[in-house]
């Protein structure tokens, strides 16, 4: 499916962002470039023997109509009434290197069109598992027709010890008066790299509710780009990232308010332990004439170790007068008074820490707009927190 020559591909890899680019200052894609270059000379490897089992586990644990993209190939096209699902042979030509890479290497893309009200969530599982070094692409378009309602779960997972780099592009178009409930779960293996971009455009008087959960992965970069060019759009999106030893999770969000009145609210929370780094960069641009914009962004971080690093950066650019904008970021440690309170009730430090971190994260889970995904998210989150807290003895000092 390679659409260009090896030299052209190497050239695209060479154009991938570097830390000299302002937007990529904190996230070094050298690993992704190395994996890509190696893989280009080797080609696809053997699929992991555990892949089918893992697909089954995930699709059975969350009640949804599942579409599966495994190692870049579409496994099934579920038939859901009110939903049209098509394979795409190609992705649109990209305007930046990661989109170019996506377009050049895409095996099969997905296009999902929703009309009317769909009760059962649409699940999209993007999973990679190979015995050898691999690079995979996913390209997914979801379109909600005017006045339709649907819930979409994006679930990103991977398995295997071999080096892996996944590059995904999701485009979500929410029609006029439509309501989209969206949950993104990222639970890739701890040594894997993912760059993912989600472009959302929100129609007139449309609702977009979203929550993203980064519960795994080695080097993760998410770009959420929301375009509001219609009056009455109501957007809220939240995020939770849990990072332990060796992980790097970068969330870049951008909301363009081009027309008002419209609302956008975001809240990201992170829990970091051990030597790790997270980035939250929330940009909101209120363009000239977007009167009546209400934009709110918040980012709160809990650092359990002094080796953990967070770069939290709100960016507001406002080019009109009649707006209401706010932002707030906090970085803190576990509250010692709360910890002592719980310990004085007989809970050991580890249990008390788990309870307090869980409580910190639970607010984001509670607001996740797709009920069917919450149990799986909670399960993954609890397991991840328990391991993060057990494996680092740093906070017991």
């Amino acid at each position, binding site marked *: 499916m390679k659409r260009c020559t090896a030299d052209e591909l190497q050239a695209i890899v060479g154009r991938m962002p570097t830390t000299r680019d302002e937007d990529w200052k904190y996230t070094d894609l050298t690993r992704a470039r190395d994996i890509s270059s190696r893989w280009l000379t080797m080609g696809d490897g053997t699929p992991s023997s555990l892949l089918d089992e893992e697909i089954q586990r995930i699709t059975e644990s969350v009640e949804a109509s599942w579409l599966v993209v495994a190692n870049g190939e579409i496994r099934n096209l579920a038939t859901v009434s009110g939903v049209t699902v098509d394979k795409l042979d190609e992705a649109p030509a990209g305007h930046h290197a990661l989109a170019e890479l996506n377009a050049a290497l895409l095996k099969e893309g997905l296009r999902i069109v929703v009309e009317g009200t769909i009760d059962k969530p649409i699940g999209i599982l993007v999973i990679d598992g190979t015995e050898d070094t691999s690079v995979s692409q996913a390209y997914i378009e979801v379109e909600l027709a005017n006045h339709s309602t649907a819930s979409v779960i994006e679930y990103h997972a991977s398995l295997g010890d071999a080096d892996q780099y996944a590059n995904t592009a999701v485009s979500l178009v929410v029609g006029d008066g439509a309501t989209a409930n969206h949950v993104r779960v990222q639970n890739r293996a701890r040594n894997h790299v993912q760059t993912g971009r989600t472009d959302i455009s929100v129609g007139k008087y449309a609702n977009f509710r979203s929550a993203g959960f980064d519960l795994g992965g080695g080097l993760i970069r998410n770009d959420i780009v929301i375009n509001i060019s219609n009056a009455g759009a109501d957007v809220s999106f939240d995020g939770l990232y849990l990072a332990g030893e060796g992980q790097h999770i970068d969330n870049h969000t951008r909301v363009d308010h081009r027309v008002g009145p419209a609302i956008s609210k975001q809240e990201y929370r992170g829990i970091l332990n051990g030597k790790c780094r997270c980035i939250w960069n929330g940009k909101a641009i209120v363009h000239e004439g977007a009167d009546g914009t209400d934009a709110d962004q918040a980012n709160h971080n809990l650092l359990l170790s002094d080796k953990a690093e967070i770069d939290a950066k709100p960016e507001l650019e406002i080019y009109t007068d009649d707006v209401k904008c706010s932002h707030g970021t906090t970085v803190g440690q576990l*509250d010692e008074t709360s910890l002592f309170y*719980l310990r004085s009730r*007989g809970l050991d*430090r580890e249990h*008390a820490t788990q309870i307090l971190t869980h409580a910190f994260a639970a607010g984001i889970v509670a607001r996740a707009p797709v009920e069917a995904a919450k149990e799986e998210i909670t399960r993954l989150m609890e397991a991840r927190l328990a391991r993060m807290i057990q494996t680092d003895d740093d906070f017991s000092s």
Partner: protein
Amino acid sequence: MLQIENLKSRIGETEILRGLSLSVNPGEVHAIMGPNGSGKSTLAQVVAGHQDYEVTGGSVTYKGQDLLELEPEERAREGIFLGFQYPVEIPGVNNAYLLKAALNAKRKHAGLDEIDAFEFLKMAREKMATLDMDPKFLNRGVNEGFSGGEKKRNEILQMAMLEPELAILDETDSGLDIDALKAVANGVNSLRNPDRAIVLVTHYQRLLDYIEPDFVHVLSEGQIIKSGDKSLALALEEKGYDWVREAASA
């Protein structure tokens, strides 16, 4: 049960307890009184194991073991309960969850099985009834948005559930209206028995109208300067703390 000998403790550079001695036996109710800053709360925090208070001298023995060697959670599992002056709000943690986790931590330590859900709920409802607490508090976040009185009742509920051998109640009466005070006193009195000791840390005599102490101690500048029976509390109410201080220094 609890033997405190010549205890010295400081927080940061400030010395607060300066050679405090106290002996508490099963079945006894002690009231520790004293003006602000005399070290009442510090004593409570040191016994519960708060890490900010450094013990610089003396000893604390509880049921024959060196209490100062134990982590706060170990002290709790061994039967010590501290009712906080300012109970901590923990949004997002269900009150019932905490009660159950605390109870099970203690049961596990004692070699018992975890309490089953039905038994737990039955027990919690009974205890809440004696405290005049609405059962809906079980499903709220720990102390989240509780009024001052509700927080103190919640402390007593935790105590009632955990059935400690030694309960230290730090200014449990502060900020309570008369109904809440009676409910709290009721809860405490229902726990009085020959195997259990209760230490009430209080600024005012008012609480002692409802919970009758066996001993009253006056704390001043980190030391117990006078001990007596409940009549001492009444004398304090009438004459103030200066009277004891003057008598002690004379």
